[in-house]
Structures are given as structure tokens and as C-alpha cells.
């Protein structure tokens, strides 16, 4: 938009100021006053009390520690997924491509409580996998580990292979190699684990009411954030630049690190910021899977609720203020990234930023 408003778009002065004042008022009452209130309440007993509320209580301390564990795991897992998914969606035509795009949005529309419930149904004591997990839970670990290794090998392979300039007969050929190497890795990793008995046998693996459940629930709720930001950016860039790099003789890895990553950098950072904010603050889903075991499965938002129920308002606000601070930092970072990204791509892909 040009700096000077067009004549036909300008409103009368009274209307302009009236609307601006109303909007400012709405934002103040709905957003600004609550934020100030959080800090005011938290600090109402003085800095010393605030500090004690935040760090002296072992359970609060543990909740901070737990949040700092769960959120990064979920974020990292989602980053990897998002890069792979968006890359695949943009670069390949494969069956279920539209389905994949639709599925990515799904967690947005599922109530967090329902999300948590779904995990309880699967992994809980009465859940479908509950009995099995309790009897011999760790026996699935070798398979999971082998699976992860195989997927990693396939991913690396396909980055190296598919980044060759397109040629028809090579494609089917390399496909076979990729699948074979995946299968081989899976088998190898699996056999090694089984042979050396890495995982304890006949012990119950707790997922629900334990940290793995928290991580899973958080992953579910937050995983659309990064992917949603990356897909439009990748689509806007298209494969031409990568092909250009390949035609200039760059290898698959070089292309990935020197062309793909710099191009999606801002979109990625933006998505990570949003994803992280949500991961730290997630309440509903985590509430259902955590079982509220004090000092064990309480994340910070859950701790706020518990302190609130115990009428320990100052303590509750102290934890809340820490999260609010994080939210404000998130906003600042987000604004900064938006401006940076906007400066780079004048037609920013971030106009829809923050939506859903």
C-alpha cells in the first residue's frame, strides 16, 4: 500500500478516530489489561515472594523442567516431519497427496481434550494397547527404533538420489535401491537390538500418565504449525532453483543446504516460533493424558491450574507470568521474522501468518 491514502478511501475524521478509539479499547480490555494483570498479580507480594513462588516449590520447579523437556522434543519432531512432508508435497506427485494436505490441518479442528482422550484410548490401561504395554511394553521398542533408522536412511537416500536432474529410467531404478536400503537398515537395527537385549523385558512401558504421553499429545496438537508455514513457501519457490543448482553441478546435499534451507529459513523459523508457543502452552490434551501426578507429570500450564484450585493465586500467577513472558517474546520474535521475511520476499507468504 502506498503511504498516501487515496482520496476515495479516506473516512471522515470523526469516524477515523472513533473507530480507532473503539478498536484500541477492545484490544486494551481483551488483551492488554489481562497481560498487565498477570504481572501485577504475580509481583503483588514483591520480588522475593515471586522468586520463591517460582523456584522454591519443588513441584513448580519440576513442572518447569518437564515443560522444557516436552516442548523441544515435540518441536524437533515436528520440524523434521514438516520439512519432509512439505518437500514431498511440492516435489512429487503421489497418491494421497491431497489427503496428506488435508490431514495436516486436522489437529487444528480437533478439540485438545478429544485429542488427549484418543491417546488415552490407545495407550491407557483400558486402551487397545494398554494390556500389552503393561505386560511387555518395551518389546516394541526395537521395532520402533529400527523403523526410525530405516525412515532416516530412506530420507537421506532420497535427498541424495532424487536430486539428480530428472531422467526417466533412473527414477524407478533408484526407487528400488531406496526401498532395499530401508529394509536392510530396518532388519540390521532390529537384529542388533534383539541380539544384545538392549531393552528390558517383561516390564510395563508407561505412556499415559507419563512423559511419553505428554510428548505424543503435544506433538499431535502442534504438528500442523511448521508444515503449514513451509508448504506455501516451498510451493512459491518451486523446484526451479534446486534444478538450477543441480545443473550448475552442485551435489544433492549441497543443494539442500545451500539452496533449499536458505529459501525456507524464515518460513521455518516462523513456524517453529508458533509451534513452540503452542507446545509450551498446551493444556487440554496434556491435561487428559497427564493424570496430574504432582512432581511427575505436571507441565507448567497444568501447574497453574493446580495452584489455582488450591487457592494459591500468587503461585499460580507466578507460573503464569513466566509463560506470559514467553508469549510476549514469541510475539516479538514473530513480528521480527515477519518483517525480515517480508523484506526478503516482497510478496510474503506470511500474510496468512498466525491463522489457524
Amino acid at each position: 500500500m502506498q503511504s498516501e491514502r487515496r482520496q476515495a478511501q479516506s473516512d471522515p475524521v470523526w469516524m477515523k478516530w472513533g473507530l480507532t478509539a473503539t478498536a484500541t479499547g477492545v484490544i486494551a480490555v481483551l488483551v492488554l489489561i489481562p497481560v498487565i494483570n498477570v504481572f501485577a498479580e504475580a509481583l503483588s507480594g514483591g520480588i522475593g515472594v515471586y522468586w520463591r513462588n517460582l523456584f522454591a516449590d519443588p513441584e513448580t520447579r519440576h513442572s518447569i523442567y518437564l515443560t522444557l523437556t516436552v516442548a523441544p522434543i515435540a518441536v524437533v519432531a515436528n520440524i523434521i516431519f514438516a520439512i519432509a512432508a512439505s518437500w514431498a508435497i511440492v516435489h512429487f506427485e503421489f497418491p494421497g497427496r491431497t489427503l496428506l494436505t488435508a490431514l495436516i490441518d486436522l489437529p487444528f479442528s480437533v478439540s485438545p481434550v478429544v485429542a488427549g482422550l484418543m491417546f488415552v484410548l490407545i495407550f491407557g490401561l483400558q486402551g487397545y494397547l494398554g494390556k500389552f504395554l503393561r505386560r511387555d511394553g518395551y518389546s516394541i521398542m526395537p521395532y520402533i527404533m529400527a523403523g526410525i533408522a530405516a525412515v532416516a536412511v530412506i530420507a537421506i537416500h532420497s535427498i541424495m538420489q532424487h536430486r539428480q536432474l530428472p531422467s526417466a529410467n533412473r527414477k524407478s531404478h533408484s526407487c528400488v535401491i531406496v526401498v532395499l536400503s530401508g529394509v536392510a537398515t530396518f532388519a540390521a537395527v532390529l537384529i542388533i537390538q534383539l541380539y544384545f537385549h538392549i531393552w528390558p523385558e517383561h516390564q510395563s512401558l508407561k505412556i499415559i500418565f507419563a512423559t511419553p504421553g505428554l510428548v505424543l499429545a503435544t506433538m499431535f496438537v502442534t504438528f500442523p504449525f511448521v508444515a503449514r508455514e513451509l508448504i506455501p513457501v516451498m510451493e512459491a519457490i518451486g523446484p526451479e532453483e534446486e534444478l538450477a543448482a543441480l545443473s550448475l553441478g552442485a551435489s544433492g546435499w549441497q543443494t539442500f543446504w545451500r539452496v533449499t534451507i536458505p529459501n525456507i529459513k524464515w518460513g521455518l523459523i516462523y513456524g517453529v516460533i508458533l509451534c513452540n508457543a503452542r507446545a509450551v502452552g498446551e493444556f487440554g490434551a496434556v491435561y487428559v493424558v497427564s493424570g496430574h501426578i504432582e512432581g511427575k507429570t505436571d507441565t507448567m500450564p497444568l501447574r497453574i491450574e493446580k495452584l489455582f484450585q488450591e487457592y494459591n493465586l500468587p503461585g499460580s500467577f507466578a507460573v503464569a507470568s513466566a509463560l506470559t513472558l514467553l508469549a510476549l517474546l514469541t510475539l516479538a520474535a514473530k513480528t521480527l521474522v515477519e518483517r525480515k521475511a517480508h523484506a526478503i520476499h516482497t510478496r510474503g507468504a506470511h500474510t496468512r501468518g498466525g491463522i489457524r
Partner: protein
Amino acid sequence: MSIEVRNISKSFGAFKALDDVSLQVPKGQLVALLGPSGSGKTTLLRIIAGLEFGDPGSGLVLFHGSDVANYRVGDRGVGFVFQHYALFRHLSVFENVAFGLRVKPRRERPSKSEIRQRVMDLLKLVQLDRLADRYPSQLSGGQRQRVALARALAVEPKVLLLDEPFGALDAKVRQELRQWLRRLHEEIHVTTLFVTHDQDEALELADRVVVMNHGRIEQIGTPEQVFQEPATEFVMNFLGSVNVFHGRAEGGRLRFSNLEMHAPDLANGAEVTPLRIFVRPHDWTFETHDNGTPCVRATLRTVNAAGPKVRLQLVTDEGDVINVEISQERYGELGISPGSAAFLAPRDIKLFKDQKDLLATWRVAQDVTVEEERLLSPEGP
């Protein structure tokens, strides 16, 4: 209705879009505002429309002799056709055209059946009556352009203003719409101003052409006037291609490149130097031998015979590059090829002093040595 613009200036920040511009458009004329982008032509059109205002205290816009400063764009009785048409995309073609009638205050608003009649008449006029129920997204560029025009005409404007009306269309549609607009103007005869950067469009369509540059009007005149007697170097340059030489006039003789000719009328002034001398590519007579006419000697370098005219590029021993256009027949007669020696006699020369004022125009008749035809006053028209 006649339009008069008096001493209007307009700045956007530090950028001066219009610098003390004055202009008169007589009733019923079709006038082109011609200039490169950034010359202020669109700004001038928007100020006339009332979409923008000149700098405070800078001047007046008069419609039919009365100041319209206090009239909003909707009350000025102008029909404005936007460069990108600005059609309402959620309304059908019919509703787009009817818009101006439907938003009239209740007392002035025509009845439903009258609106229907008026809109259908207009759509017939622009030959779109069969597409009345379509939406803008279902139309071609040329059709959208005509809807925009019909929409502007629906409110029976006394002045029609068009901003780059054919700018976004491809060459063929452009050509068709140009002729169609000319016919339409003859039919409805409403005072019309249009902005364009295409000199052919301006010269072909307009009764008068206003050439603008850097927020100033360089020349106002009929298409013949601005083409044949450009007031400034800019106009000369902008309307078609030219060959430019640096030259001198002294003692009644004019010199440029390796040509020297008799120029008695330049003698009454003092020596004028430096001079800038313009000859259009089609204003040269190409000969393969010296026939005594004053001429530039050059060597043919390249030939491009594709198109109605043959375009030649020549170079003199002094290193001047000269572009010449000759007819296909003449090219056939001459039988020349790159490397041939050439003798170029200018038929029409324009001299400019200080990059600005036209000093003289010569028509050099064939066979006669050097005959001065006309000398314009140094002030220009």
C-alpha cells in the same frame, strides 16, 4: 463540457508529480495525455476527476468555467475508466453497469424498468448485451474494458476520463478497441481525455495531443503539429525514432557529421553552436552515388528487410551511426548490400538549441539544392 486546468501542482513527498500545469480542453474533443511513465499524466487525469487534489493553493480545475474544487468525484459528472477496469467482481456485467444508477439518491433514481432499459441500451452500444449475466471473471480483457466503459457512461457523464484504457490488452485487441473508441466518440461526442504512453495510440485517436514529461506539459497540439513541429527535443524524441547529430551553424552554413549545407537564415543571428540536429529515419534520401545534393557519406552496415519498410544501419567515417528507413521498392531498385557506399540526403531536418527550443525546420525538396522552407520563432509555439 469544456475543461480547464490552471496552474496545478502536485507533490508526493519530495517527488513533484505535476509542476504548474495548465491545460484547456474544448467541449466535445478527444484529447490524449501522452508521456512516459512518471510524467504526471495519470496524476493530472485523477486531479481532473477529483480522485486526487492538487497541492493546497496551487491552482484550479474548472468545468465549463466554474471551479469544481468543492465537488467530490461522484458529483463532478465525470465517467472514469480505470487502468485495470476496477470492475466489481461480485456483480454481474448488468449489475456493474447499473451500479451508478442504483446508488443515486431515491428522488433521482430511475425506476427499475428504466434502469433495465438504460443498461441494456448501453450494453448494446458496447456490444455486450448477450453477456449481461456473466461475471467479470468470465470475460476477456477487451470485454472487461468495454464493461468498464459502459459502466462509466451509465451515469451520463459530461466528461469521460480514461486511464491507459488499452494498456493491459494485447496488440490486436488494442487496435480494434482503438477504432471502436474513435467511432463511439463520434457517436456520443462527450468531452474525453485519455492517458497513454503509446504514441501511435495518441496520434491515431486524438483530436489533440498533450505531451507531458517530468510533471510539465511539453507541447499541446494536433497530432500533425506535435509530429511535424515538435516544440522540444523531448517531443521529437518521444514521437518516433530519430538520428541525433551535434552540429554548428556559422556564416550562413550548417555543418553536421560530414555534411555541409547552405543555411542563409541562420546567418542573421549570431553563430549558433552547439546545435542539435534531428533527422527521422524515414526522412533520408538514399543514393548510391553523389548527385550534387548536400549529403552525408556513409557505409551500409546492416539491412533488416522484414516488415513494410526496410531498416538500414549505416556508419560514417567519423563514426556516427545513422538509421534509415526506405521502402521495399526503393531497396529493390538500389540493389545494395552491407559494405556498399551510400550518400544520404536529409529531406527534413530539425534544429534544437539548448535541448529545448526548436530553432528551425527544414524541408529539403528533392532535386533542388537547399531550400529553406520555414523558420520558426525561437520561442516555439
